[in-house]
């Protein structure tokens, strides 16, 4: 049990989670290097293929509408039964 407790304490002792604010001679150089490593340049504008589905949507709706209108016209002008 004691060994288990000791192991647990030692393993926790290896972690120093609140470490941070150390100011020494290396700090300025490290921070300068850090900043320079992550210089950002904007990506060039890119032509993105239409993945939004707009074109397909428009096509289907337009086709659907046209088919319905044509169908309606066929019905309308089909010879009525003689009275």
């Amino acid at each position, binding site marked *: 049990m004691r060994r288990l407790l000791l192991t647990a304490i030692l393993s926790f002792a290896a972690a*120093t989670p*609140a470490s941070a604010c*150390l100011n020494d001679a290396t700090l300025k150089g490290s921070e300068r290097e850090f900043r320079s490593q992550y210089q950002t340049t904007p990506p060039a504008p890119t032509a993105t293929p239409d993945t939004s589905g*707009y*074109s397909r949507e428009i096509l289907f709706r337009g086709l659907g*509408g046209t088919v319905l*209108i044509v169908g*309606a016209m066929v*019905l309308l002008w089909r010879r009525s*039964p003689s009275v």
Partner: protein
Amino acid sequence: MRIGCFRGGYLVAALFFGLCAGFAGYLTTHLDLPREYQTASSPMPHFVPKYDGGVSLRYAMVHDVIHERFPVRGPGYYRERDRQARERLKTLPPDSQEAFDLADDLGVGLDKLGRPADGVPILREKFERQQKKGLTGRDLYTTYANLGTVLIHANLKAALTGDKAAKEQAKEGLKFIRKSIEVNPEAHFGREEWQAHIAEYLLACTDTFDLLTKFDCVGDRLDDDARWSRSAVRMDFQWEHNTFKQDFSPDGTLKNREHRSDIRDNIRTVGVETGWPKSLTLLTLQKPVPFDEPTLGIIGMWRQGGGANPYFAVTLGEIMLRVGQRYIAWTAYERASSLADKYGWKPEHATFLLQHCRGRQREIEQQLPANEVPKLRAQFEAELAHGQQFQHDYQEFEAKKIAAGADLHDEHFFDDFYKNREPIATPIGESEWYARVDREAIAPLQDWTKKSTALLWGGIVGFTLILLGRIAEWSFIPRAQPTKN
């Protein structure tokens, strides 16, 4: 009479279809529909640092700390610097600025060598000399920060196992850190502030044990599983259409400083979620914060402080998850899992962390393309090995140069090391930017969508009307009976 009614209906229908046909004709004259659009990139709101001249976050920074892709000084450097500093101090007036700086180097070096308690008297003595000299405010910043840190490092472990004296010492360290923030709030991208919050969290864990299994160290809930779809921008619509775009230079830096806080209001916030024990006086973190603040704080602590630990790794995972960076979050959980035996002070804590990380990873994997999931672990391990190999090579090079008598303060100390080497930092990619299609670019499409929808509904209504008319006609108009001869 009935026949006349139907004929009138047909007339209306015919007119209606005429209109529809005209509309369809109109559509056919505009078949220059664009098939692709220019995707423009906007700076993300977190490109604007909290303070003027501060560092702004990039996701690549998070990726790099998780995979150890940054240089770390070796123990040989600190030992040699310690030796040289002690020699130099013998020749300096004790209240000179150089002597104060060397005291900082000594204290920090001892901390880096795993002996923070030995650094405490050196820094306390420096503090006394500075006070005797009448120094105040910002002149005491490094003393406050270093003394606070070594006090916390020297005592936190014992405090967590119930040592009351150690807990008081750690609290004293916390007070020094708070003073360092007071006199220099903009220092080192907010590291001190986050160091203080994390130390508060750990000290609070000694009183409220379930904190470790309910929250990460900035107050993100560890049992909340509905946070995947969020992005780094709090209100996408507002960010896309607001007027702040004019406030940026092409490289994403802020031109109009007056809008700093307005722009930063668009950053997704994290931390202090439901149930965070705000009533604990020790915890000064009382409200959610823009996600880049704790992230930069942790990155700074990881790189400049004690390196990897499970608290930082799991917190980065939770934050990245909350801003939609699932791949980075997955790697953060993987790193936290590998450090799980250092989480808390009971085996149950380590077990909890391991289970939590695996659970989070499973949930992320369900959202990723199936062919990518099996590669994740191998990629992570390869990249971590790459970072660790870099650090090993860096320290080996450093040790050889020190042994050869090179000047520790030479700015070009590592020039030969970097020769013919790819930069260790991950290049900034497109994913750092907010990709969008301008409203103007998609306006023709939206116009077409409306027209085609109108056509569809016109067709539906017209067809239905005619069909109903025909059905009525067939049902009610008596048909001529064939005559029998």
